[in-house]
């Protein structure tokens, strides 16, 4: 009883001891904030990386390998039970040119030919598109309107925009130069009758000798292309400081894409596409380099279809596994089926492919944790020193208690429970501070921005609208428990010293 009474009184009357645990408090708060933010970033990154990549990627070089069907058959034979979806893909580095205010704007891209029926099933591709209908079922036909309903400043797009623009251009051309604007288009497509009508396959009647027809941009579109939103938009702050996107082109505009052909003599080929949607995964690396076109169209343009047999080449097969399936086991089975020395294929899981990035984040988190725990350990030595001071100061009280018959263990537990309470108070306050900070981190960032004038978290850099956080109860528990443990360990030595004091000498102490 006297133990509780005295350690409580010492706690109440010794604010210096409270000061000594402020560093514990700050350490705990920082640890919680750092871990939550890092976990938030990792989660977002994992989500996005995984969303972009399917579970397992089966790929060869740019020229691709023939007969995707046979490979898929083999894959199904190996790991058929675990497969949820599979799709063949062609990817190739390319250049994209778009006309912005009368000037060509050229950028380097990763052109990906996807199968619109199956591609959305192996990744989160569909979710990242802007038109609600495309999210449900991917289509490379231009929609009438209704793009990006979530974005307030998204400009009018689709057929509406396309008709308006071509009418304007026509009027402009007629007023300036007499010759009629004729665009040579190898393949033209009829206008989609209405935005929601099921699009018919635009390629069924392509091939063969396409005669030169007059391409009417008000009614026809080129083959569709979906481009990464960062390729054609600039994120900046306007005069009021609000983050705003400025679009260089939008669904309905035409772009030109230049890419190498496949086969023995590689040449540059070019083709016009009509932007039909934007791709926004919020990973700036992908959003600023990916462009998606129909698979068959790209195979055709690159000469990847064998004219005699009709067998086409693909550059990779992406496989999505059922939830709970063992990723690495499936990969190892495929590697065993297609050994490296016989087949030129790289078979990796999405984790393998993003391994360096994920490992870097993990390493960063670990090092930060170690450093911050060292800070708490330093705080532990502060507590140790303060406690020794308090024990020296309380020497006479210890003598009194012993003279009154208090056992050494009782004296020791006064100081131990004092240490425990300090640790609990310190790390408890730290935990609350840390959690409050995490819950309000974006407001705090805004406030800091206001005070310092320095942008803390720049959404134009990170492509996150706000700082992502994830609170992990287990992390918080071990951080708090670790801090309490350090405080207790720091109080053990002084407590033992107090317990060992000789009562007579302690009573004589002035």
């Amino acid at each position, binding site marked *: *009883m*006297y133990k*509780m*009474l*005295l350690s409580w*009184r*010492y706690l109440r*009357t010794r604010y210096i001891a409270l000061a000594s645990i402020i560093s514990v408090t700050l350490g705990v708060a920082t640890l919680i904030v750092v871990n939550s933010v890092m976990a938030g970033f990792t989660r977002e990154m994992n989500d996005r990386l995984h969303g972009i990549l399917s579970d397992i990627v089966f790929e060869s070089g740019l020229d691709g390998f023939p007969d995707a069907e046979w490979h898929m058959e083999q894959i199904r034979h190996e790991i058929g039970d675990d497969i949820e979806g599979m799709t063949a893909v062609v990817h190739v580095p390319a250049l994209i040119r778009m006309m912005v205010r009368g000037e060509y704007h050229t950028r380097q891209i990763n052109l990906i030919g996807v199968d619109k029926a199956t591609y959305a099933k192996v990744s989160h591709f569909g979710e990242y598109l802007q038109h609600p209908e495309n999210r449900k079922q991917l289509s490379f036909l231009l929609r009438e309107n209704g793009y990006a309903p979530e974005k307030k400043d998204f400009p009018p797009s689709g057929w509406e925009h396309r008709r308006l623009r071509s009418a304007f251009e026509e009027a402009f051309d007629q007023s300036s130069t007499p010759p009629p604007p004729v665009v040579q288009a190898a393949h033209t497509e009829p206008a989609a009758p209405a935005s929601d009508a099921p699009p018919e396959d635009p390629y069924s009647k392509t091939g063969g000798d396409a005669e030169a027809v007059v391409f009417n941009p008000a009614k026809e579109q080129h083959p569709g292309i979906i481009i990464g939103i960062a390729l054609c938009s600039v994120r900046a702050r306007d005069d009021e400081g609000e983050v705003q996107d400025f679009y260089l082109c939008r669904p309905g505009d035409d772009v030109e894409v230049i890419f190498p052909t496949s086969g023995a003599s590689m040449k540059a080929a070019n083709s016009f596409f009509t932007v039909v949607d934007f791709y926004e995964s919020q990973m700036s690396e992908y959003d600023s380099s990916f462009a998606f076109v129909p698979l068959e169209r790209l195979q055709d343009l690159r000469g990847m279809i064998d004219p005699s047999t009709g067998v086409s080449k693909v550059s990779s097969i992406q496989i999505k596994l059922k939830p709970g399936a063992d990723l690495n086991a499936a990969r190892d089975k495929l590697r065993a089926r297609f050994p490296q020395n016989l087949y030129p294929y790289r078979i990796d899981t999405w984790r393998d492919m993003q391994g360096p990035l994920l490992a870097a984040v993990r390493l960063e988190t670990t090092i930060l944790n170690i450093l911050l725990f060292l800070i708490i350990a330093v705080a532990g030595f502060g507590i140790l020193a303060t406690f020794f001071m308090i024990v020296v100061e309380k020497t*006479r*009280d210890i*003598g*009194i*208690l*012993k*003279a*009154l*018959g*208090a*056992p*050494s263990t*009782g004296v020791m537990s006064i100081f131990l429970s004092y240490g425990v309470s300090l640790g609990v108070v310190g790390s408890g306050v730290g935990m609350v501070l840390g959690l409050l900070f995490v819950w309000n981190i974006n407001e705090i960032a805004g406030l800091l921005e206001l005070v310092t004038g320095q942008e803390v978290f720049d959404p134009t850099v990170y492509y996150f609208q706000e700082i992502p956080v994830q609170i992990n109860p287990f992390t918080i528990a071990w951080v708090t428990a670790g801090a309490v443990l350090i405080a207790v360990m720091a109080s053990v030595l002084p407590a033992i010293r107090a317990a060992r004091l*000789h*009562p*007579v000498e302690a*009573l004589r102490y002035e």
Partner: protein
Amino acid sequence: MNSFFALATKRQRGSQPSSSPHAEFPHDQTAPDEAAGDVAVATECATPGSPRGATAIAGPAAVASTTQAITMQRAAAAEEPVELMAARGLSKSYWKGKHEVPVLHDVDFEVGTGEFVSIIGQSGSGKSTLLHVLGTLDAPDSGEIHFDGRRIDCLSTSRRDKIRNRQFGMVFQFYHLLPEVTTLENVLIPLMIAEGVFSYWRRKREFVERATQLLETVGLSHRLDHKPPELSGGEMQRAAIARSLIAQPRLLLADEPTGNLDRQNGEEVMEILRTLNAEQNLTIVMVTHDAGIAAQADRTVRLFEGRVQLA
């Protein structure tokens, strides 16, 4: 002041000469052949872990609890009272570096039940050390201390702690109150030490009442919630006396209780001690350097350079 002494020790010590261990330690009455204290001592010191020792220092509450014990006490009252505490051949020296500084030389000392003995000597004569050794705060280099017929100097630390807590009351020259807690809590500390947390809470009302009444009788009822630094020296010493009495001890050890007080406060404290001795038959051993104070005791033992000087 008379009501105070009735409260201070509810046990009637006068009827408790306690010559036999049976009377004092009612739980320890099974063995018929252990009447001789020395036999008991031999076993205790040889085996400090034996459970008998634990019962030997059972708290005062246990003592008065059984009617059997009371009957035994009455039976024992007829016998001739022996010493409550006796010390034989105590020697103690301190080491200053390599030099041995002898403090006590072969000191024999005894105090009978209900006796008020003062130990007088100049500073450095070893009187405080003697009191500390008697109070088990310090261990003698050689010699034996018997309390109530049992040897206590060789008991384990935890049992000596319990004896100090329940059988001895101590008053010091510098009061030695805990500065962080109130007067009332200071008085309650020995009970907090004696009782576990739960039993203390269960009996808290009773304890607080006892402490309040003790403080009232030493004239500190208006100071219950004051902390020691707010009290005068005389008030602190009276609070310290109240604390020494709260656990109803059988022996009061006072180390220069008036040494730090002015004449009037010193007189008040001596008055309290004398009344305690006279009306409660409380055994008191008091150390002082003041012959005038010492003369107020029943008997005076003079220490000179660590030896007892005969009259």
